[in-house]
């Protein structure tokens, strides 16, 4: 029988690989927050098998299941059969959108990005008091969260680059648009082209991003291939800073939260730790770290569409911080900072910030 949907054409064999063992359930952040087996990867694979078998059809009834996934890839990392769950979920979401069944938050985001330059529909981006230079060795690409939600983190990152005498410039950046593909839509070509043109116009040899998700998008998406074809290197600021002698240190007990986009999705675990260990000899790992790190709950559009569950996921992560008694939680993702910060209870006295922000604050103390 001919497959009805693209997700089946692309991933039928992988979906059938799911042996229903449930290893994914133990690590799924959505299951952890909701305790609903239908929402973990096994539940989602069973459901898509039912669709492939023609027993149920894609419809609005499946929105909550298929659109409530942070695409953190914990399931895939722990799957003995190697089922590529995030890719399957993204393909199924495309089919859902094609038949008109989409979470309203994501439909709204797609519309917003047709009219605005960022996912928040904000009209004015902060310029951080810096002139945009016509040419520079590096472009600093902040990302939507860094420009409109975690401005302090971006300001701090720029101040650190200034201190290190890095030849960089900001550009009139627009949303990298990667999130659209995650939630069932096509990448917005106009946004992509704008970023490519503005980066190339600076003659920069590399783009330093403050956002691991933007780094992934610019590095991996086919639509950004023209940028890479010109030899422009894309790196996250954690990669850029790892070899610098920053000349600051702290005695505080510091831990590190691996962002899914930098860790499981890009395999970047040691670069941030290399920097943090230089700053903070009293570094301690969370109970789950490296590829086993718990997701903060913000990815895959879940923060926008299922905010309560998203914050509950972040609270689970913060319990691990309490357990080890850390005073500072560092991470390399503004979305993680934002969600973990929103989830932090008043009684939890630890600080949550990006590694770069922490470096900046230590530099300020030293001056």
């Amino acid at each position, binding site marked *: 029988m001919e497959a009805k949907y693209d997700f089946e054409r692309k991933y039928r064999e992988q979906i059938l690989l799911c042996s229903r063992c449930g290893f994914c359930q133990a690590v799924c952040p959505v299951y952890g927050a909701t305790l609903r087996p239908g929402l973990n990867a096994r539940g989602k694979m069973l459901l898509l098998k039912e669709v492939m078998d023609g027993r149920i059809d894609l419809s609005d009834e499946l929105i909550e299941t298929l659109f409530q996934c942070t695409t953190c890839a914990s399931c895939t990392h722990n799957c003995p059969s190697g089922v590529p769950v995030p890719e399957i979920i993204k393909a199924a979401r495309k089919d859902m959108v094609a038949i008109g069944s989409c979470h309203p938050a994501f439909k709204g985001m797609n519309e917003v990005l047709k009219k605005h330059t960022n996912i928040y529909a904000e009209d004015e981006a902060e310029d951080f008091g810096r002139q945009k230079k016509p040419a520079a060795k590096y472009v600093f690409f902040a990302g939507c969260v860094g420009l409109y939600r975690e401005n302090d983190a971006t300001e701090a990152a720029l101040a650190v680059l200034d201190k290190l005498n890095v030849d960089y410039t900001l550009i009139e950046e627009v949303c990298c648009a990667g999130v659209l593909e995650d939630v069932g839509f096509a990448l917005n070509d106009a946004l992509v082209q704008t970023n490519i043109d503005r980066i190339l116009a600076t003659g920069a040899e590399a783009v330093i991003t403050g956002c691991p998700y933007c780094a992934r998008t610019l590095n991996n998406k086919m639509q950004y291939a023209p940028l890479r074809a010109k030899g422009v290197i894309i790196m996250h600021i954690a990669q850029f800073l790892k070899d610098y002698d920053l000349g600051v240190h702290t005695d505080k007990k510091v831990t590190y939260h691996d962002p899914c986009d930098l860790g499981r999705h890009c395999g970047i675990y040691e670069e941030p730790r290399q920097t943090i260990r230089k700053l903070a000899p009293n570094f301690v790992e969370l109970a789950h770290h490296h590829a086993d790190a718990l997701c903060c709950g913000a990815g895959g559009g879940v923060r926008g*569409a299922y*905010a309560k569950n998203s*914050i509950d996921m972040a609270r689970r992560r913060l319990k691990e911080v309490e357990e080890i008694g850390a005073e500072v939680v560092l991470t390399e993702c503004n979305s993680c900072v934002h969600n973990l910060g*929103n989830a932090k209870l*008043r009684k939890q006295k630890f600080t949550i910030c990006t590694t770069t922000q922490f470096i900046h604050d230590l530099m300020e103390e030293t001056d």
Partner: protein
Amino acid sequence: MEFESYNMPDELYYEPNHYWVRPEGDLLVMGMDDFARKLAGQIVFVQLPEEGKLLKQGKKFASVESGKWLGKVYAPVNGEIAAANEELETNPGLINQDCYGVGWMYKIKPDDMAEVQSLLHGTEAVQKWLVEEIAKFAKGA
């Protein structure tokens, strides 16, 4: 006062970014008004500054979020935070449920209680302001 489906109690004072203020002894209680509540939708996060945080009238001191919307909270008077509604930490939806009651946000110890008079107050002033606000924000929302 009920105006165009917005409930704006007469006895309250209003900060122009749609936060209400009510004198209570030597403190001011503050929360989000019905206009902002309806425009914002489901509130998912309220920043709750520590007691003692100093406030400068007109300066941002906290934020509120609903999905993709981020609201800034500005100090209605000079003073300091005396209390924050800790219930909002785990149940920010109290603002949606009852923005003038259990959904209150902060208690402020003002430097000078008379500064509350600089806020919007009284049927006529509030109605005039709301007409402008509806034209600016609410149409087509």
